């Protein structure tokens, strides 16, 4: 049985470990923290599986490979909500919706009645909306914990210290791998979690705004995740400015958010390469899986599949970089 080591227990590492186990490998995952939690930037993710919406600014591979994600997560037993995404713009920004519609595929324009049928709590607040079908969302924290538990049940060992490098290794440390991948940079994202019993949403909402774009992802128990700022910085402080922007935009989306409980504010820096696309970098027996940027849950399944296929089948996949020392 092939032995493989995975360094890093975030979304990239856990997806790679899952793919390795599926291939019958004997896997050890190394991470200083024993459980998924606030130390890793996957913890702060929105959990939107929205390849088409991301295509507004992201390159083509994100749209194509991201379409694998919802099925992959569902196959692992994670609850995936397939309700699509609703894209909205406030009155004076309504032309933003036209621009978005031009640049994104797989959508239908809704009139107020269709919007009200889809999300009754938004009735009367918007004169039109874009429904991007074929998109989904999940609870990222539940998904991480689920993958971790399944791997443990499958006999995967979790250890804190990687020790000396030996054998086939998948390096999935995210921004912490900057010592080995100097092109990596941090892109800060800030989020908030609110709880409200006054509003119900069944699908992620994207509110287009020239200054303060917002997305709201509904989670169980009346929780709503608000995200996410995108700032060129590896700083992890939670700033008042970003909190103000997120909360103001949420309030503009629906005044009920003004009465919501502020459960959590979080921030982390996401690992990105200059083109904001991921990379698989092979060095000796190590394959780096990194640079997932704001597309961790969206792209990690495809990257994991490609990285493991490269190691096991000798295929050189997309995003493949081979370093010769």
């Amino acid at each position, binding site marked *: 049985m092939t032995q493989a080591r995975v360094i890093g227990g975030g979304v990239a590492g856990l997806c790679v470990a899952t793919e390795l186990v599926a291939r019958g490998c004997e896997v050890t995952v190394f991470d200083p923290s024993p459980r998924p939690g606030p130390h890793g930037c996957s913890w702060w993710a929105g959990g939107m599986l929205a390849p088409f919406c991301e295509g507004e600014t992201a390159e083509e591979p994100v749209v194509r490979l991201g379409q694998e994600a919802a099925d992959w997560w569902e196959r692992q037993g994670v609850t995936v909500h397939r309700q699509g995404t609703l894209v909205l713009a406030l009155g004076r920004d309504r032309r933003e919706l036209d621009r978005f519609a*031009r640049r994104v595929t797989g959508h239908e324009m809704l009139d107020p009645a269709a919007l009200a049928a889809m999300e009754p709590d938004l009735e009367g607040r918007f004169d039109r909306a874009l429904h991007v079908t074929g998109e989904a969302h999940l609870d990222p924290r539940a998904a991480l914990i689920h993958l971790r538990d399944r791997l443990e049940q499958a006999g995967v060992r979790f250890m804190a210290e990687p020790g000396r490098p030996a054998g086939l290794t998948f390096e999935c440390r995210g921004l912490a791998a900057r010592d080995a991948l100097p092109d990596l940079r941090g892109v800060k994202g800030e989020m908030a979690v609110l709880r409200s019993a006054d509003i119900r949403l069944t699908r992620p909402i994207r509110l287009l705004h020239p200054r303060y774009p917002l997305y709201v992802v509904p989670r169980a128990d009346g929780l709503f995740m608000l995200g996410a700022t995108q700032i060129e910085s590896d700083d992890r402080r939670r700033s008042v400015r970003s909190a103000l922007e997120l909360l103001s935009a949420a309030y503009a989306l629906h005044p009920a958010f003004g009465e919501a409980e502020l459960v959590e504010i979080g921030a982390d820096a996401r690992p990105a390469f*200059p083109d904001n696309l991921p990379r698989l970098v092979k060095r000796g027996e190590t394959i780096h899986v990194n640079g997932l940027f704001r597309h961790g849950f969206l792209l990690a399944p495809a990257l994991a599949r490609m990285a493991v296929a490269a190691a096991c089948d000798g295929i050189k996949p997309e995003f493949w970089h081979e370093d010769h020392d």
Partner: protein
Amino acid sequence: MQLYGSEIASRLMLGTAQYPSPSVLTEAFRRSGAGIATVSVRREAGNERAGAAFWDLVRDLDVALLPNTAGCHSVREAVTTAQMARELFDTPWIKLEVIGHADTLQPDPFGLVEAARILTDEGFKVFPYTTEDVVLAGRLLGAGCEVLMPWGAPIGTGLGLTNIYGLRTLRAQFPEVPMVVDAGLGLPSQAAMAMEMGFDAVLLNTAVAKAGDPAAMAEGFAGAVEAGRLAFEADPMEPRDMAAPSTPLIGKAFLE
């Protein structure tokens, strides 16, 4: 074109914010041939120079860097940001923004003059983001500014030159002062118009960064800026009401 004694080859300046990725930003600069990049220090400034990775990418563009005080709403904030920018980018140049109105991002004329004076006294070369107001322009020059950056329209609106009369007046009042139309441009034709009016350069960001193909739009703007400048230097004809045939009519039959 001389700005504070430095020769700048291109009359197009680009901002560095809001691009889909640093790679797209780099490609946009390459195709635009822009000579100056503005860079915002305020938003990224955290502990331990947290935005360093992005700034390194901007430095690699190999163009002159003009740090700005974007998003500053007070004199004190703008002065502190300018001092930080000088440390970070090792340049006395500063594009001074003091915002007076949150919704329109209109400059605060009073704060702008005060901040310009403070910074000039500290040895900065100040590029003030201003309106087309000639009185304000005079005060800024009096405060030591040697370049002016009047707006075309509010930042990020893409409305073009909303007060052509005001901009013409400003240009005519201070013919020797280098002026850069900054903000509000959405299309290359608007940039060409500013250049035809005799402005020395244009600065834009959103129009390129938020285009579907930023690099193509950057090249489009570069062509427009060059066209507009050539037209200005070529002394364009005056419009007239009477049609004047460009080939003589003599010798041609009246009825064909």
